[in-house]
């Protein structure tokens, strides 16, 4: 169980590298979104490991907030026209 959690933490570090390094703004947005989904997975595994059912509420809330933030930034980028 702990080995799986370490693997998911490695996923989160990959996403963090892309969020710090990414050339454009969309790279950072999608990296933070995927980092939120990976935190959802870690929280679900913690709920099984430590027998705490209310941690699944936390994972649903993280998923909803990540989705809303990504849609807001996508709408902001779409409404702005750059002529290059």
């Amino acid at each position, binding site marked *: 169980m702990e080995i*799986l959690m370490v*693997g*998911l933490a*490695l*996923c*989160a570090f*990959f*996403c963090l*590298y*892309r969020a710090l390094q990414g*050339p*454009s*703004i*969309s*790279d950072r*947005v*999608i*990296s933070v*979104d*995927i980092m939120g*989904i*990976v935190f*959802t*997975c870690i929280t*679900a*595994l913690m*709920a*099984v490991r430590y027998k705490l*059912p209310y941690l*699944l*509420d936390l*994972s*649903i809330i993280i*998923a*909803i907030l990540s*989705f809303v933030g*990504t*849609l807001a*930034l*996508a*709408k*902001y*980028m*779409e409404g*702005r*026209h*750059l002529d*290059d």
Partner: protein
Amino acid sequence: MISVIGWIVIVIGVLFNLLGSLGLVRFPDLYNRMQAATKCVTVGTCGIMFGVFLLTGFSQTGIKALLCAFFVLTTMPVAAHALSRGSLIFGIKLWRETKIDKFGKDKFGKELIEGKDEETQA
């Protein structure tokens, strides 16, 4: 027996997550990265949640995990599609070895492929 199947599904989901995050680091273009990362992470997260459901059965944890899996399965492709369309309209160019770009040719009159003279930020 059911718990063994649940563990196998969870391990497969973690492997999908690792491969998706590796694709997020290694691919050359924004759209390639978004494709790899979003699809693999969606399948991996649904696998982990379904494995948690198989481990705990119809309890409080299992029903919430199933709800979370359904929610991720419906909202993650919507977010990726909206973000890729927004970044195409925003003006982020495609990879320099892309063969064809019909969206840019229809909407803007020119293809949005990255030129040879610009430096590539891979």
